[in-house]
């Protein structure tokens, strides 16, 4: 007996509806891929050809010059290095502080739980705003220090709630066993609890890392010093402000050639700067699917 395919079971009307839906989905997927492929291909094309004729598959017009110029620029590497340092430090601090705080907040017997909860949740909706925070940072002598972009956002109440929900889903026997052994809370937390929390840790770490890697606002207002700037600020001057880094285009003779080259450099810059995350993220996919599910159980 041949099993009927699932699709065949739908009625005529439903089939039309489904096909329509899948066409829409397909169009959305194409709309995501096409610009990306365009940027990739365009990044290899000779700047004059690109401006006059768009992309071409005549490989004699292809060149690696944009990549050579971007990769040989010092500021890009400084930006990369800073972005890695800030993102890693931010992720470690943030996940540790958040996971730690979520633990007492997950315990029903914790005295003061309601009070602290209100204290934290208020900050999700109300805050001092840009200038008061800026004045505080400058009073603390944190301008041009990496801690200015790391500390203010390190504790995320939202992530704490997600971690708390996750803890609450872990069987209570785990702690009872530890209590019998006379282990204190710290030992229990690091030796027993954290090891069973890898999915949520991976999820939060990924969110925080990507968030820090991709943001630019805090760095823009707190870090003036070129040597301190993370990648996104370097990208901003190239992509948004049309100001390529020093030496990237200055050897070109005419203004027109400089403008064309500056345009081409944008493509290569986009590829080089986006590649690390785009290559890494599929390896984490299984974590964020699970993590979101874990966190969304009780909202």
């Amino acid at each position, binding site marked *: 007996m041949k099993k009927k395919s699932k699709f065949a*079971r739908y009625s005529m009307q439903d089939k039309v509806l489904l096909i329509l839906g899948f066409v829409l989905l397909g169009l959305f997927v194409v709309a995501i891929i096409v610009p990306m492929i365009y*940027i990739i291909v365009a990044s290899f094309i000779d700047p004059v050809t690109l401006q006059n004729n768009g992309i071409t598959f005549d490989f004699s017009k292809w060149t690696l010059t944009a990549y050579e110029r971007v990769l040989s620029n010092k500021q890009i590497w400084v930006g990369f290095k800073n972005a890695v340092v800030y993102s890693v430090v931010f992720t470690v601090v943030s996940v540790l502080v958040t996971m730690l705080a979520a633990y007492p907040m997950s315990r029903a017997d914790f005295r003061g739980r309601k009070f602290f909860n209100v204290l934290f949740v208020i900050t999700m909706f109300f805050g001092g705003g*840009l200038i008061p*925070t800026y004045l505080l940072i400058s009073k603390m002598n944190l301008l041009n220090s990496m801690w200015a972009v790391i500390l203010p956002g390190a504790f995320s109440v939202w992530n704490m709630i997600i971690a708390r929900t996750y803890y609450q889903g872990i069987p209570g026997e785990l702690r009872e066993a530890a209590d019998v052994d006379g282990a204190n809370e710290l030992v229990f937390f690091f030796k027993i609890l954290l090891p069973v929390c890898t999915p949520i840790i991976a999820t939060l770490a990924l969110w925080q890392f990507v968030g820090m890697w991709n943001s630019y606002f805090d760095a823009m207002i707190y870090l003036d010093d070129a040597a301190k700037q993370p990648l996104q600020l370097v990208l901003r001057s190239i992509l948004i402000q049309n100001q390529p880094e020093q030496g990237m285009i200055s050897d070109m003779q005419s203004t027109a050639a400089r403008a064309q080259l500056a345009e081409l450099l944008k493509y290569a810059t*986009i590829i080089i700067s986006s590649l690390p995350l*785009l290559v890494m993220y599929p390896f984490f996919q299984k974590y964020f699917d699970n993590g979101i599910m874990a966190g969304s159980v009780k909202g």
Partner: protein
Amino acid sequence: MSTSTKTKDAGFHNSLIYVRQHWRLYVFFLLPALALTIIFKYIPMGGILIAFEKYNPIRGILGSEVVGFRHFRRFLSSPDFLSYLANTLKLSVYGMLWGFPVPILLAFLLNRINRVGVKKKIQLVLYMPNFISVIVLCGIVRILLSVTGPVNLLFGSQINFMTMPEAFRSIYIASGIWQGAGWGSIIYTAALSNASKELKEAAVIDGANIFQQIKAVEWPAIKSTVIIQFIMQAGNIMSIGFEKAYALQTDLNLKSSEIIATYVYKKGLIDGDYSFSTAVGLFNTVINVILLLAVNKIVAKMNDGQGL
């Protein structure tokens, strides 16, 4: 002495014993988060005072001259006020109207794909734009839409989209959907996967069509998630992000691209008008809180008394 004071004393005594026994919970677990919250969230709230002062950096927050609501009046009576408020509201309300349903639709469609391999591959593509930074996204948009860019090359036109105030919102919203809809669908996909398989099978056997299946099985599975997401987004209408609006701004599209967040930044950190900027920011936050409470109330009413 009444009995209630006695039990209160007893409760306080019990708390003391608890804290003494579990001091590690307070010192090692809670303190770091508490310290960060107080320093970086609550102390700046005190700094809001400067919105009611003529702030003088030398005299400090407590020593500056108090001017009451002068900055608020100045902002509310300036001709730009309505324009910035409208820009902010339009950008986020339209963004939400267009953007909110897309992830839900994507999740429904993904849920109908039976081949796990195909579904995973599509998801991989859908999530990808989320990992592109705001700057790179805006860089791509600027490249694609530039006068010599591929869109103009394709249509043989020479339109400079980035300088058109009337194009700004469409660009902002469309690129937002492009980047965020796939990622936003994860939470609904997760909720849908909790929908009972048996219930769905039963609905199919009963001859329910897709709409009936959605109504009976899938919608109930994601309803609470949809409501939470809706409240969260509606409540954040005034706190629409600075980063993207600023990165898509050009001198010529300011008429529709200047929102309160970018205005606060320019007034405060570029012009150095600290007090005025803080007042504008506070105005924004207060409206946001009111909106959040209102939306929560309305949704609670529609949802049999269940809000957030």
